[in-house]
C-alpha cells in the first residue's frame, strides 16, 4: 500500500536543493522566476499580437476585448509550458488507512473509545450511517470492551 516519494526532484544536486515556500507550497527560486517571466512574455506578447492583427478582421470596438482574450490564451499556454518544464517538487505520500489503531487515535484526540462507541450505538441514525460505512465493527472493537 505504500508508494513513497512518487514525485522527486531531478536536479543534479538533489541533496542540497534549496526551496522557497510561496503560498503554502515549496518552489525552486530560479524556476519560479523563469516561470513568471515566461508567463508575462506569453500573455503580453499575445495581447500585442492581438492589437496588431485584430483591427484588420474585427470591428473597432471589439479589438481590446479580443486582444485581452488572446492574452488570456497566451497565459494558459504559458501555464502548460511551465507545468511541462518545471515538474512539481512536492513529495506525495499515499498514507495507509491508519497505521495506528482506531483506539489509539481516539485516545490521542482525547476521546474515550468506549464512550464513542456507546454514543454511536445509542443513536440509531448515526449507527446506521456508520454501519453503511462498514466501520461499526472497528469502533466496537476499540470501545465495546
Amino acid at each position, binding site marked *: 500500500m505504500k508508494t513513497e516519494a*512518487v514525485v522527486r*526532484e531531478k536536479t543534479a544536486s538533489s541533496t542540497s536543493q*534549496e*526551496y*522557497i*515556500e*510561496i*503560498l*503554502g*507550497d*515549496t518552489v525552486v*527560486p530560479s*524556476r*519560479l*522566476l523563469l*516561470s*513568471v517571466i*515566461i*508567463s*508575462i512574455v506569453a500573455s*503580453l506578447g499575445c*495581447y500585442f499580437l492581438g492589437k496588431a492583427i485584430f483591427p484588420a478582421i474585427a470591428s473597432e470596438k*471589439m479589438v*481590446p*476585448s479580443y486582444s*485581452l*482574450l488572446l492574452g*488570456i490564451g*497566451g*497565459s*494558459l499556454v504559458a*501555464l502548460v509550458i*511551465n*507545468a511541462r518544464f*518545471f*515538474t*512539481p*517538487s*512536492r*513529495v*506525495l*505520500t*499515499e*498514507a495507509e*488507512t*491508519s497505521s495506528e489503531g482506531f483506539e489509539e*487515535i481516539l485516545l490521542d*484526540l482525547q*476521546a474515550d473509545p468506549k464512550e*464513542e462507541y456507546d*454514543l*454511536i450505538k445509542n*443513536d440509531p*441514525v*448515526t449507527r446506521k450511517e456508520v454501519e*453503511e*460505512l*462498514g*466501520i461499526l465493527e472497528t*469502533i466496537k472493537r476499540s470501545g465495546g470492551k
Partner: protein
Amino acid sequence: MSVLMISILLALAGAVLFTLIGLVSGTDETAIMVPFTLLVILLGAPPEAVFSFFMAAVLSKHLTHAIPTALMGVPGDTTAVPLIDHASALRRLGLPHVALRKMLSGGLIGAFIALPTAVLFGQFLGQFADFFKASSGLIFTLAAILIAYFSKGKWVSVLMIIPFAFFIKSIGTYSFSLTEKNLSISFFLGIAIGPMFSDILISLSSSARKSLVRSQAKEYHLAPENKSWKGFFPNPFRVLTARQTAHTAATSFVSSLTFAFSPVGMTSLMGEIVSSRNKGVYKKSTSSLATMNGVTESTYIAETVIPLLAFGIPLSPVALGPASPLFNAPPVFTSDPVNNLHNMLTPWDFFLYGLIGLLIATVIAYPFAMNYARTATVFVMKHISQEAIVGMFIGLVCLLAFHEAQLVGVMLTLIMATVGGLLNRVLGVSSGVQFMVFYGSTYMMAKLLGA
C-alpha cells in the same frame, strides 16, 4: 445570442475553471477571483452573465476546495482553515471520504438557502440605500478602522490607515497626471496579489529570504481511495442526517443575514455552536464540517448579493475582496457614482441569474468532487507545479494592469503589491483593510488635508 444563453455558457465556463482551481490547495480567493471576474467584465459580458459566472465560480471553488482539505489536511483556502481540525480527525480515523461528503453536502445546502435569503434581505435594506450612498466615504472610513482593529495587526493596522490612504492618493494622482484616468483595477490587482508577490520579493532578498527557505520539498499525505456510495450524483440530503441538515440550514440562514462580518469568523463561530451540541468525535466532526462548509458558502453569497442589491457599494469583506469587480471595474462598472450590477439588475434578476450559476456549479462541481476527488488531486499534485500556477497569476495580473493603463498600470500594480503585500505579511494589515482604505482614501484626504 440571448442574455440567458450567454449567462449559461459563462456559468459553465466559471464552473469548469474554478472546479479545477479549487483542487490547488492554499489558493487565496481574492487573488484568483478578482482577475478572472475582471476579465469576464472587460470582455463585455452582459451584467446578468457576469453575475451567473461569479456565482458558479464561487460555489464550484468552495465545493472542490474541500478536496485538499479532507484528503490531505491542507486548507483549500483561507475559509477552509477553521475546518482543518475536524477534517484531520476524520482523516486520521481513515474516514476522509466521509469528511468530504459531509462538507460537499453542507456547502450545497448552504448555497441554496443563502441566495433567496440574501435577495429578500437585500431588498429590505434597499430602503436605506440613499443614506448609505450619501455617506459612503464616512462609512468606509469607519469600517476601515473597525476591520483594522479586528485584523491580525490590530493597532498597527489602525495606525497605518491614514498614511496608507495618503500613499494611495499620491500614486493615484501621479498616475492620473500621466494617463488622464482614475485607475482602480491596477490598485485592486496590486492589493489582491500582494501576499503572493511579497513572498516572491522576500525570496529574492538575500537578507530576508531565510524565513522562507526550506531544505526539503513540501510533503503531502494523501488518503487512500474509498468510495462507498452508488451512482454518480449522491443525494446531499441522504449524505447528511436529518439533524445535520437542520443545523446546516439554520446556521446558513442566520449567517446569510450577517453580511458585515468576516466569513472565516462566522464559520468558526457557527462551527463551535454546532460542535458543542453534538457528542462524540464522529458526530461532532461530521456535523461541524457540514455546518461550517454551509456557512462559508452562505456568508460568501450573502456578502456578495446583499451589498450589491441594497447599496451598490462594497460594504462587506467579500464585496471588498473577491467580489470587488462586481462593484467597481471601470469603465464598465463604477461604485462612485454607483453604476454597477446594483442599477443594472432587478432583485428578480439577481435571484434568477444567481440560481443559474448555482445550479450549473452543482451539476459540474458536485459530482466531480464526489467521484473523482482523488484522481484529480493526484493529477494536479504530480503534473502542475506551484511555479506554473504562480507564474500564470502574475502573468494575468500584468496583462490586466497593462490593459487598463499600459506601463503605468503595471508599475502601479507592482508597487501596490509590494507595499500592500509587505504590510500584510509583516505587519498583519489584511487585504480587507487595504481595500477599505482604498475606497475611503478620497474622503479621508479631503477631510484631513482639504485635498
